Each structure stands twice: as structure tokens, then as C-alpha cells.
């Protein structure tokens, strides 16, 4: 059996390849990006022509995967947790159509918000869609469960949600790989011809079918082996540990032997019988889960009149943020070790725009133009340029969700805040900004949209941008007056010239677009390095 050193994300990717996927569909987002990147660079994927290009956004990714599943093949969709909000419409409806070829949706949550606007818990989406959810606790499980999720999806005829969190996504460990990877499915349309036509008459039937499957989902979660009851002699406490929390629990005990009965949860819906067995034999229950208190809240109920349930809701564990071994030890009343005190001289080192970043020159020009107006007019978006909120630039006033810069600027202008400015990156613009710009054109909004085109999806590490070489045509095609579309090159030496253009368009009382185009310094450096390496190689072979 081959052993591989893989990130949790990469284990999912390898699991999917070995489960015979025909395609992965995704938009980059921390901590999910490495799943798709692994498949893109995998030899196995090239040999089997697994489709793996980036999608424009999570919704298009989800729908494309539904199409592949419809055609009978196995498809995976990957995104960060907030990406599932973007894809929520097709995601929820895919639970009604059901899956034909195996359909697995991976959502990577980011508790403690290392790189995100919130710490929403994707398990609630699984409950919302009423489909099975897998939550691996380590890299091996991530690999094994991905394959299982595809089998489960086809056996039950529904999509399966796979939920991971940052610490598993971005942690490496050894994974044993199967000797028997599966072949891809052949083309096979759904046997029920109306399954995917969600007219009310069909949708009601489909929905009833989904409801009837709920008991089977729960039965499978009890039988699959991924939820495990481990008995213990000390019945004063019972522990329910979900996903990654199980590792933090056993970390605190030598040889991983826990004196209390433990229920390890890695597959949902939670089997009620297993929970009842635990609750019946202990005095009180401690629930450990990464994210929101989903299981804890279910157990407590609204009135909380049963056995004592401890966890994030009663303060045994913090209500927000990710767990760690020390927090878990404290909740068990164990003694914890402290390290040395942090020295008083220590200061923070927040992330910054890189040296030579084109965004810096763009914002320096914009800042100067905006000096004469009152503050609070620059609506921004999700990307590297969000860092311009911090000193020294302090250029932007909002960052809410992908694409919200343009639409919020429209709303603020409608309210009387004229001029309003939207600042958005090229990849974010094609993700969710284009439709907002159409609204602005139809609304004749007095806004200036500043598209920072660094020709890549930079924040997540320089993935292909769907906007590449298409931006100018899209902006024209949406209906912005060509006289008010400008392309500038954000460079220090062109500062005066650029400022004049921005100033003129900010003063114009209609929709204007300024595209600031200069390649990201990171992707540029990488390209140059590759070029130099190829040159060196060519020279060596020539001599």
C-alpha cells in the first residue's frame, strides 16, 4: 500500500481521484484551494483526463457538477464555507433532484476566521438540505471518507456534504492509499426522466422521496463505522466528540485511553440510538465540536430540562473560535501547562500588500482623489486589496462579501452618498461583480467602479482568473458608455496622469469604470523564475 504525506485537502483530492471522479469544480478560497490544485497538478488526473479548471464562482461550479452527476459520472465541488452561501440555491435543490453519478460537495470551514469574514458551520447546510454529512477527524479519514462519500451518494441517490475545518485542511500527515482505485463511470442518464425537472408536481414527489430516506441516512451513520462508541469505566461523564475535536480529546490522555464513555461522531445525521446509549449510562454529557454548537443544541433542546449537557453553550468551552488541546483539557477539569509569558516588547505583524504591488499605486492615486470628499465612500470587496483597509493606506470603508462593492455603492448612491466608489478585483468581478454592474447601468447610478486587474486570483495564491483578457469586453458588453471606460497602468511614475483620469470619472454623474491593469508581482516573479529555468535547461541540452 502506497504511503503519501498529504495535507487534509490533498487527502480529499487523492480520495476523489481514487474514487474515479470525472471532474472537480471549484472557485479558490482558503482553506479549500489546495484540493483542486492537487487534482490540477496530479499525473493520475492527466492520465484519466479528469476535468479540473477553475469555475467563475461557487454557484457555477455547483451547477456544473450537478450536470456531470446528471450524466452519470462522479463529480466533486469544492469551496470555502462562505462559498457555499453563493452556491446555496443549486446545493439545496440538488438534494431534491438527487444525484445520479456520485456528487460530493466539500465545504472547508474557517473557525477563528483566519482568512474569512465569519465562522459559519457548514454542518447546518447539510441539515438544511437534509443530506448526509461527513466530518473527518484526520488525514486518513479525509482520504477514506471521500471515497465512501461517493459510494454513499450513489447508493442513496443524493449529494453528500463533506465538511472540514482549517486545521485539518492545512495539516500534513501520512495517508495509506488504496491499491484499487476505481474507474470512472460511463455516461448514463438518470433512470427516472422527471427527476431533474423541478416543477412543483415533480418536486413534491422528489421531496417526499428525500424525506423517506432520512431514516436510512441515520441507519447508515450508525453502521458505517465512522461513528464509534468507545466505552469507559467512569460514568460520571460521557463525551461526544465531533470531527477534529476527537483528536484534541485523546491528545490529553496517555495511550489515548479515556476513562469516560466517548461517542466519536464523523457522520451525520447523528444516530439517535448511539446518543441514547451514551446519555443513559452517564451522569452528564460534554459535547466537543469545532464550529457552532450543533449537536449540543440538539441535545439540550429549547427547555434544557434533561441531563446536564455541557459544551460551548454553558461556557465549558468558548462559544466562538476553534478548539485546541488546552481548551479541551480545561473543559475536563484537567491541569494545564503554561509556557513562558509573552514579553511586553512583542508587537503584532499584520499582513501587508507586497513590495511593488500594483494595488498600492492604485490606492495612492485613489486616496488623493478622495481627499476632497468626506470619508466613508469607498466600497470594497474580497481580495488582497482588502488589506488597504489597514495603515498606511486606509483607503476602503467596507468589505462584506464577494461582489458587494458595486451593489453597495449603488445603494449608497441611491441614498444620496454621491460620489460612491466601488473597488473590486478582476477575479471577484467575474465571480459576482458583473451582475451588479448591470444593475448600475440600468439604474444610471452615479458610481465609479475601480477594477483592480492584477490578472490573477492573488489572495489564494495566484490561480487563473476567469476575467483574464475578457474584462474590457465584459464591461462594454454590460452597457457602460465606452467614453467612461478607462484602462490605466498603476505605476508610481504615472501617478499624476492616473489621478486625473480617476478624478474626472469620480466627478462624472453616471456609471464609469476605471480598470487599473498590472500583473501581480508574485505571479510575475514566478513566471520569470520559470522562464529563467527553462532557458538554463535549453542551454544545457544545447551544449
Amino acid at each position, binding site marked *: 500500500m502506497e504511503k503519501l504525506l498529504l495535507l487534509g485537502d490533498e487527502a480529499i483530492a487523492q480520495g476523489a481521484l481514487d474514487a474515479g471522479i470525472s471532474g472537480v469544480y471549484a472557485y479558490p478560497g482558503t482553506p479549500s484551494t489546495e484540493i483542486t490544485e492537487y487534482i490540477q497538478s496530479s499525473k493520475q488526473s492527466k492520465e484519466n483526463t479528469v476535468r479540473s479548471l477553475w469555475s467563475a464562482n461557487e454557484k457555477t461550479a455547483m451547477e456544473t457538477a450537478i450536470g456531470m452527476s446528471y450524466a452519470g459520472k462522479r463529480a466533486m465541488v469544492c469551496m470555502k464555507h462562505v462559498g457555499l452561501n453563493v452556491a446555496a440555491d443549486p446545493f439545496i435543490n440538488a438534494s431534491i433532484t438527487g444525484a445520479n453519478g456520485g456528487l460530493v460537495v466539500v465545504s472547508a470551514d474557517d473557525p477563528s476566521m*483566519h482568512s474569512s469574514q465569519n465562522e459559519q458551520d457548514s454542518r447546518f447546510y447539510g441539515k438544511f438540505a437534509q443530506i448526509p454529512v461527513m466530518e473527518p477527524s484526520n488525514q486518513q479519514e479525509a482520504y477514506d471518507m471521500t471515497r465512501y462519500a461517493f459510494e454513499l451518494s450513489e447508493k442513496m441517490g443524493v449529494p453528500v456534504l463533506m465538511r472540514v475545518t482549517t486545521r485539518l485542511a492545512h*495539516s500534513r500527515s501520512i495517508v495509506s492509499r488504496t491499491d484499487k482505485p476505481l474507474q470512472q463511470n460511463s455516461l448514463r442518464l438518470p433512470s427516472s426522466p422527471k427527476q431533474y425537472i423541478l416543477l412543483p408536481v415533480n418536486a413534491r414527489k422528489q421531496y417526499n422521496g428525500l424525506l423517506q430516506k432520512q431514516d436510512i441516512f441515520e441507519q447508515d451513520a450508525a453502521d458505517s463505522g465512522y461513528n464509534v462508541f468507545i466505552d469507559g469505566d467512569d460514568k460520571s461523564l460521557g463525551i461526544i466528540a465531533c470531527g477534529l475535536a476527537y483528536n484534541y480529546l485523546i491528545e490529553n490522555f496517555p495511550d489515548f485511553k479515556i476513562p469516560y464513555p466517548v461517542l466519536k461522531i464523523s457522520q451525520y445525521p447523528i444516530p439517535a440510538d448511539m446518543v441514547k446509549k451514551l446519555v443513559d449510562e452517564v451522569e452528564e454529557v460534554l459535547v466537543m465540536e469545532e464550529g457552532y454548537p450543533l449537536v449540543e443544541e440538539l441535545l439540550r433542546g429549547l427547555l434544557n430540562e434533561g441531563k446536564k449537557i455541557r459544551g460551548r453553550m454553558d461556557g465549558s468551552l468558548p462559544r466562538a473560535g476553534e478548539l485546541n488541546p*488546552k481548551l479541551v483539557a480545561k473543559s475536563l477539569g484537567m491541569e494545564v501547562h503554561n*509556557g513562558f509569558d509573552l514579553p511586553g516588547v512583542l*508587537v503584532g505583524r499584520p499582513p501587508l500588500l507586497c513590495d511593488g504591488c500594483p494595488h498600492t499605486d492604485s490606492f495612492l492615486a485613489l486616496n488623493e482623489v478622495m481627499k476632497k470628499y468626506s470619508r466613508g465612500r469607498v466600497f470594497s470587496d474580497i481580495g488582497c486589496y482588502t488589506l488597504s483597509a489597514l495603515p498606511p493606506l486606509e483607503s476602503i470603508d467596507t468589505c462584506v462579501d464577494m461582489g458587494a462593492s458595486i451593489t453597495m455603492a449603488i445603494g449608497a448612491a441611491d441614498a444620496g452618498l454621491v460620489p460612491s466608489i466601488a473597488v473590486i478585483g478582476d477575479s471577484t468581478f467575474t465571480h459576482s461583480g458583473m451582475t451588479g454592474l448591470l444593475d448600475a447601468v440600468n439604474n444610471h447610478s452615479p458610481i465609479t467602479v475601480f477594477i483592480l486587474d492584477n490578472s490573477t486570483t492573488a489572495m489564494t495564491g495566484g490561480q487563473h482568473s476567469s476575467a483574464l483578457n475578457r474584462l474590457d469586453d465584459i464591461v462594454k458588453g454590460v452597457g457602460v458608455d465606452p467614453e467612461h471606460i478607462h484602462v490605466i497602468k498603476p505605476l508610481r511614475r504615472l501617478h499624476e496622469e492616473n489621478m486625473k483620469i480617476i478624478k474626472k470619472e469620480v466627478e462624472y454623474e453616471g456609471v464609469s469604470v476605471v480598470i487599473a491593469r498590472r500583473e501581480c508581482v508574485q505571479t510575475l516573479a514566478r513566471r520569470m523564475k520559470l522562464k529563467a529555468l527553462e532557458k538554463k535547461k535549453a542551454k544545457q541540452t544545447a551544449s
Partner: protein
Amino acid sequence: MKKDIIISGVGGQGILTIAATIGTAALIEGLHLKQSEVHGMAQRGGDVQAHLRISSGPIASDLIPEGEADLIISVEPLESLRYFNMLNTDTGWLITSMNPYNNISNYPQLEEILNAIWKLPRYVTIDAEKVAKDQGSIKAANIVVLGAASPFLGLKYTSLEKALEKMFSRKGQDMVTLNLKALKAGKNYTEKHT
């Protein structure tokens, strides 16, 4: 055998190379390993760290418990302070470069930083850039720091050498030689100064 190691620095300083070298050496010796890394937003010139755990037995948590790290390996002095709370007060060693990476306006006086480090019971502070330069290139400063930490890793020195050869062979024999020299120079420094 079990070692919990925090590796710290600023995004782009090569901490993942250090982690990968130790990880590869651990695999050569047939040890278990877990390595938690930072990706995403924090990489943009901000503070970054990796938790590396190697052990002869299975490892549970991807994160090192607070106050239990055996070793902090830092390629930047200010960044080494950020993880004092992770270090085991009875046994932990701190190995850090003395070369500041100053990309913030309120960067403290280097002397104050070093004074905080020198109050610890067990530390090695090394001018890694100078040592690396003496070996041929300042670029190998991160491997000098790794060399300085090598006596505390619980791994055979030859495993680290093999790991470096494996990792840098793709970049040519010059790079392999440079990094092996840098590793050795770092090791020599620690042996002379502890």
C-alpha cells in the same frame, strides 16, 4: 521519541522549507508526523508559523498543546517571541536568527527583543545571515537556523543531510552543496555556543 516543534517567521522567509526538511528526515527514520501550516491571508508579509510534531508513536492533535513545545525554531527574532507561551518551561529550547525582518513601523529595538530571549533558560541566538553569507549565499539563512537547531531535534544528523539532498536535488548540485554547508555551519555554531 517525541518532539513538538514550532517553526516561526514572516511569510516568504522559508519556514515551510525548514518544516519539510525535518519532516522528510523524520520519514526517513520511519517516524510518525503531523505538520500544521499557515496558508492564505497571513502569508502576505504577516507572521506565519508551523506546528511540526514527530514521534515514534501515533500523534493525535495537529496542534501542539500550549506550554508543551520542545523547540521553537525561528528565522526572525521578533517572531520567536510570539510563541513563548507554547514553550515547555522545564525543557524547551528556543533557536532563533538574530536578523530582524523590519516591515512594520513600530518594530521594537533589536536589543530589547534579544534581552527578552536571553532571559530564557535555554536558547541559541545566531546571526544566520552572516553565517549563510560565509558559506556562499544569504539565501541559505533558514537552513543555517535549522542547522543550529539540529542537535535538539532527536533525529540523526545524516537524516537531515539526506533530506536536504532529496529536496534540493531538483535545483542542482550547487544548491545541495550550499545547503549542506549551511546546515553544518549552523550545527557547529550551536555546538560551540552551548
